[in-house]
């Protein structure tokens, strides 16, 4: 299943947030969206997931989702969005219940996704007992349980400390190598973008426009060893963004 973002523009009242964004997200591909804060990256992700509507342009879905996909477009949130009153397995089963999956079938799926995210020993734990990295793994397990065609990840590692981030990044790469999911990954962290992205879309400051689309041909699994080449790409990205990031930092925020 591919996703086509077609000339999307958006404004909140008088403020232009996004201007004429077009790109394509192919099956099995990770597209990273980077840009200075307030450039509308998260808004763009909400359009792709159908949680908000752009003022102009459209987001199209091409092709059928894989068979057995319960929720083709599935989010992973920055703040994990786990229900604090449900255990790890309860949080996963929440999204299965509405599809009528209960009992043994649900148990099998839950066990499978918890194994894949290395959480099997923590199935009865409550979110407050888990570290940030584990919480995000629960959120990823929950996303995997509905068999998504595209994962929409909104700064999934930004709330974590740098060591946990590194561990989870490795987990994500391992997961992708095994399952070849497609993802739209919003981040402000350039290192994450060059480690995960097949395609990196650099947005400008408000109103967000596409400044450049950078493609990286190195296989994800090899990237950890080829630091020098990635370093170069990362520096290139930073050069694209530096001035804008500085300007964005000095801006008064009067738009929510």
């Amino acid at each position, binding site marked *: 299943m591919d996703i086509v973002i077609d000339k999307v523009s958006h404004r909140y009242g008088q403020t232009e947030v996004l201007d004429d964004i077009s790109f394509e997200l192919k099956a099995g591909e990770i597209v990273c969206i980077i840009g200075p804060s307030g450039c509308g990256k998260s808004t763009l992700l909400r359009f792709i997931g159908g*949680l908000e509507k752009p003022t102009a342009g459209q987001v199209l879905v091409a092709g059928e989702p894989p068979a057995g996909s319960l929720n083709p477009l599935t989010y992973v949130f920055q703040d994990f969005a786990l229900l604090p*009153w449900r255990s790890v397995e309860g949080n996963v089963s929440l999204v299965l219940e*509405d599809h009528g999956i209960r009992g043994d079938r649900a148990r099998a799926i839950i066990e499978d996704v918890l194994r894949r995210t290395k959480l099997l020993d923590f199935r009865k734990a409550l979110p407050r007992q888990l570290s940030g990295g584990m919480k995000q793994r629960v959120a990823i397990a929950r996303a995997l349980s509905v068999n998504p065609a595209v994962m929409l990840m909104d700064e999934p590692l930004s709330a974590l400390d740098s060591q946990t981030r590194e561990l989870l990044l490795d987990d994500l790469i391992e997961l992708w190598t095994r399952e070849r999911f497609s993802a739209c990954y919003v981040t402000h962290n350039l290192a994450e973008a060059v480690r995960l992205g097949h395609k990196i879309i650099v947005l400008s400051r408000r109103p967000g426009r596409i400044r450049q689309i950078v493609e990286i041909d190195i296989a994800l699994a090899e990237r950890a060893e080829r630091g020098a080449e990635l370093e170069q790409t990362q520096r290139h990205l930073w050069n694209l963004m530096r001035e804008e990031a500085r300007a964005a930092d000095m801006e008064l925020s009067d738009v929510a």
Partner: protein
Amino acid sequence: MSLDAAADPTTAPARPAAAMPANARPVPYRGGGFKVRRFRLVSPLVFIVLIGLWELGSRSGVINSIALPAPSEAFSAFQDLVRSGMLWTHLGASLYRLTVGWLFGSLLGVGVGLAIGLFSLARAGLLPIVSALFPIPKIALLPLFIVWFGIGEGSKVATILFGTFFPTVIATYGGVDNVDRNLIRMGQSFGLSWLSIVRKIIIPGALPAILSGFRISASIAIVLLVAAEMIGAQYGIGAYILMAGALFATDQLIAGVAILSVLGLTVSWAIGKAEQFFLSWRA
């Protein structure tokens, strides 16, 4: 600081403090305090000492027995009440009014509160009414309630019902408003139905606020119960206290007030237990 200690840092910590300057002293400790510690025995002790002093004062004649009867006298009044069997008549009547009034007031309150929290139209229509009626002391409406619901149980239950309804509405819709929007967005992003989002995300998320609303409404209910029973009731703790007051039987009055206090404590303990059970997911 000696030079050789700096040159070999690995052994430095193990060395005896021979190189310590003569005027070295520990950093003055300034932390600590401002922390709640638990003293389990103190609260019963305070009660015992207070009642003991009171008893002593009454026996020695320092406290006039007409102004304030001794605790032992109040206790024997209470024993009379138990022996005559009237305790259960009064307590039963009071508990019935309290339970029915509070239960229906809370149920309606949670229902209306959820409606206000979930539907903009209900909010626009009902919230002004709730805001206008909430500050009215419900006891002032008792004469009206007597006309509407009769002098019997109806008017008393209605007073408690109305008194508990409004705080519950306000606690409930406040709780719904405070549910993390991102959790709701998460539910939507996974394609959960509206009903599922309400049942599995909004109501559990609003439960802490609803339960603390219950705490408030339960104490309001007890206050209103006594007030309503003081106006035209044959039985009930409030009627018993009123009667004791009219006869200047201050020992019975103290006994009645003590029963109310125990009733209040029991209710608050029960709500505490309910919070422990339903909100065990909180730290």
